[in-house]
């Protein structure tokens, strides 16, 4: 499924918090149904960049973007874009699982119900499908009415993924989705991410180099070279290339732990 179709075009993108420019002149093409990992030292703006794609940065005051983010040919920073609709198309998973303090069932149907009315039967099949796609169904099918907070951390994270799959997004943004999980839960999340790429375009921020190497097909390396300067995109290439023979010495130094 991963093909040559460009899903997202980033052109000369920059971002400001107030007067401070944190990201500068980023241009890259993200292919449909691929997993792109964003790596870089702490504080270089990876999460800020990730939140660009669903315009979540706007929730903070005094922020400003420059350049273009074009998804399926449409610039998402144009005035006439419906942000609610945009965020329905672009799901997001966070570092710590954040299920609602409701039942497993209610967590999954929360999103679909916001957008339209469904029959009970339809909701039942949405719940089953979403949980199956999130590889959680077998573990919870007998206890859909228990509180989501009773699940383990890894299960909660997969529930959050099921919750976003329920609204049929096209793009999934993941901000360190496994950093709060133990190795076995991490492995399940990684397996799940790998399966999801068949149908979704995934962008993942991770501090874990091995995770980036394992799950992604493309890697983007962001770096702030000097304090007070914005981060730029140093290198963007195939994951195999980045981890065996990176083209830029700064990438090499970062991934081999020589700084950062």
């Amino acid at each position: 499924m991963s093909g040559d179709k460009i899903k997202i075009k980033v052109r000369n993108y920059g971002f400001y918090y107030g007067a401070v420019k944190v990201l500068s002149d980023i241009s890259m093409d993200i292919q449909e149904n691929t997993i792109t990992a964003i790596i870089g030292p702490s504080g270089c703006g990876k999460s800020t960049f990730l939140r660009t794609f669903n315009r979540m940065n706007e929730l903070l005051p005094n922020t400003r973007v420059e350049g273009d983010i074009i998804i399926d040919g449409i610039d998402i920073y144009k005035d006439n874009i419906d942000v609610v609709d945009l965020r329905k198309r672009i799901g997001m998973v966070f570092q710590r699982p954040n299920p609602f303090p409701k039942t497993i069932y209610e967590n999954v149907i929360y999103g679909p119900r916001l957008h339209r009315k469904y029959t009970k039967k339809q909701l039942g099949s949405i719940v089953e499908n979403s949980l199956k796609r999130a590889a959680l169904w077998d573990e919870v099918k007998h206890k859909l009415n228990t509180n989501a907070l009773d699940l383990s951390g890894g299960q909660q994270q997969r529930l959050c993924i099921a919750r976003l799959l329920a609204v049929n997004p096209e793009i999934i943004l993941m901000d360190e989705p496994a950093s709060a999980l133990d190795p076995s839960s991490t492995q399940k999340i990684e397996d799940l991410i790998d399966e999801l790429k068949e149908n979704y375009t995934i962008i993942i921020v991770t501090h874990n180099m091995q995770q980036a190497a394992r799950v992604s097909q493309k890697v983007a390396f962001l770096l702030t070279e000097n304090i007070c300067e914005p981060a730029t995109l140093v290198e963007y290439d195939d994951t195999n290339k980045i981890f065996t023979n990176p083209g830029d010495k700064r990438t090499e130094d970062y991934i081999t732990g020589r700084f950062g």
Partner: protein
Amino acid sequence: MRETFHHKLEEINEDVILMGSLVQEAVYNSIEAFIEMNADLAQKVIDGDEKINESDISIEEKCIVLQAEHQPVAKDLRYLHSISIIIKYLERIGDLAVNISKIVKRLAREKRKYLDREIMDLLIEMGNLVKPELNGALESFKNKDIKLASKLGKSDDMVDEIQKMIFRKLFTSHKCSEEDIKFITNIVLASRYLERIGDQSVNIGQRVLYFLSGDYKVFHNGV
């Protein structure tokens, strides 16, 4: 932890250089033993091989532990992976020096009135071509010298040619008594072992070239 990693990497580097010098000594001694039909020197090479084999295993173990502990990437990964292969070539070169030394012992035992001068000169010439290849391979590893690594293998054709000349001379100039056949076989083998030492040295150079450049094409195109 990264400092520990780089410290251990440096330690492995030193180990490989040391192993290289052991192998170099074995090759030089085996060639000298051959030229002089010196059975004692040949025995020294045979006895020294154990140390080379031990280095091989101990370096391999260090490489695998380091990979498990630190999951290196990029040049560190290429480097450790290449070392794991380079030490196998070195170990093999050590074995070839032992093989030559065993031939020396056999021939010395028979006290055969030796080779005609011409064949001997050709073997010496072969040794003179092979030694710089090995030296170059070890030097390129030690100094991480991409230029030197890419120059190795230039005398390959010459070595092959000399080997053919030795074969021709052996098979045309001797009456074939059983003794002669034994003798000829030993010389043929010795020249073959020398030629293999040259080849393995070039292989080491290719690995050095790969871990320095990251370009896997070096293995497809030859050097």
